């Protein structure tokens, strides 16, 4: 059985002001394998955040179903790096993370994560005193500190400088190896997706659905820039309709 099965028939938004109904998602279906690292790529405004919100259980107002297999009832089913940091401004960095991590948090782990992300000196700062990039990193550290079956990440590494982003990616892969889980990773950066993912789902413009489902089987260390160029070229030949993303 697949640990996560997503089958959204239709997700509509009605704006209060007008009676216009906007269909953000239509017939979007996929199944994830155990501990698969899946990237999602799609044009801005196609419905990626909407999809993640539905999977996280924040939005139940859609036609269709989302099934997540529970192995351990006490475990959080998902943790979520939102597209904006969403930190509690009245709590320090450390408090923000501990609140989310709950009782089974380990302070050394949190400190270690923060240090890897370059926030070793800011553990007791309030979010308002951090730059936006730093706030995003706190949000990443928060998600990493929570043990969950599924990690949802909505463009987590934008507005980080390349070297910090690189460290963050390494940290993510390490975490994933040590505590395997399903990861759904939204990004606009194809290279990032190629570097990280087992599988990439390409979404269409809204009403969005999956237009290409690409597996990347080569082990990550072998994914050199050259390999990626080749892979891209093959893909644009085999799947010409996703040319716009390549």
């Amino acid at each position, binding site marked *: 059985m697949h640990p996560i099965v997503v089958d959204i028939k239709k997700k509509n938004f009605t704006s209060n002001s007008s009676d216009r109904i906007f269909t953000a998602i239509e017939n979007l279906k996929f199944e994830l394998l155990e501990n698969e690292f899946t990237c999602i790529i799609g044009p801005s405004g196609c419905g990626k955040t909407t999809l993640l919100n539905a999977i996280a*259980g924040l939005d139940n107002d859609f036609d269709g179903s989302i099934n997540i297999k529970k192995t351990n009832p006490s475990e959080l089913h998902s943790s*979520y790096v*939102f597209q904006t940091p*969403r930190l*509690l401004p*009245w709590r320090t960095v450390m408090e923000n993370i501990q*609140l*989310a991590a*709950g009782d089974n948090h380990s302070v050394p782990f949190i400190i270690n994560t923060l240090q890897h992300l370059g926030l070793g000196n800011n553990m007791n700062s309030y979010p*308002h005193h951090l730059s936006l990039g730093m706030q995003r990193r706190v949000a990443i550290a928060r998600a990493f500190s929570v043990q969950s079956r599924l990690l949802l990440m909505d463009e987590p590494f934008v507005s980080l400088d390349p070297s910090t982003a690189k460290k963050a990616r390494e940290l993510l892969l390490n975490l994933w190896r040590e505590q395997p889980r399903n990861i759904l990773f939204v990004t606009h950066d194809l290279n990032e997706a190629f570097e990280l993912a087992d599988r990439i789902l390409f979404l269409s413009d809204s009403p969005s659905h999956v237009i290409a489902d690409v597996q990347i089987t080569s082990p990550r260390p072998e994914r050199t820039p050259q390999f990626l160029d080749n892979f891209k070229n093959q893909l644009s030949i085999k799947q010409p309709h996703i040319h716009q993303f390549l």
Partner: protein
Amino acid sequence: MMLRSSLFNSTLSLGLLLVIWQLASLSINSPALPSPILVLSTLNQAIQSAELLHHLGITLLRLATSFFLAMILGTAIGLILGRHHKLNTFFDSWLIILLNIPALVTIILCYIWFGLIETAAILAVVINKLPNVIVTIREGARNLDDPLIEMAKAYHFGRYKTLVHVILPQLYPYIMASARTGLALIWKIILVVEMLGRSDGMGYQIHLFFQLFDIASIMAYTVSFIVIIQLIETALLKPLDKKTQRWK
């Protein structure tokens, strides 16, 4: 430094107020607006006779009890109504009725129901203040930041953590607005409650003075109460403001 300058500031501000008061009382020249000096000497006498402190103490006790009851109940109910649309539409008209029943009516009913006892007095005050707290907090609860609440939901904060760490800090300005206007409102209601059915307290005394048209004494009693409120403000509310707003 900060402290010294703020002390200087408030001395200046109070000084200016006293000067205006003195001028006004000179210009109006009526026992209805006694001069600050007269009021202060009356205050002094009232303190010496121990009468003022007795009544002030009793009123403050009533004030504290009903204040905390009204704030806690009001915040809870306001939050629930603000977050649950259906409950709110159901109880909205109750709230409007409760808000607009004259204090007189609730006070009489409480006294008649429970007798002229302390409980009745305090209940009457709470009933009068409660809807105001509810309305203010409800407005705040309607305007909570949804992204943060979603975050709390995604990370399974649970009720208690969400309340303490996500919701209450956002309600803080509404709670403070409610508390600040609330102390004043409760004090005003207590004045009427004590007039109508107690044999002690500031309201009882002030109304006796009113019958004698002894405005100087009324003002002396008022001043003593305002000093207390000013103390609460500087010793409790201001530091609380500072502490909770530290993150800004």
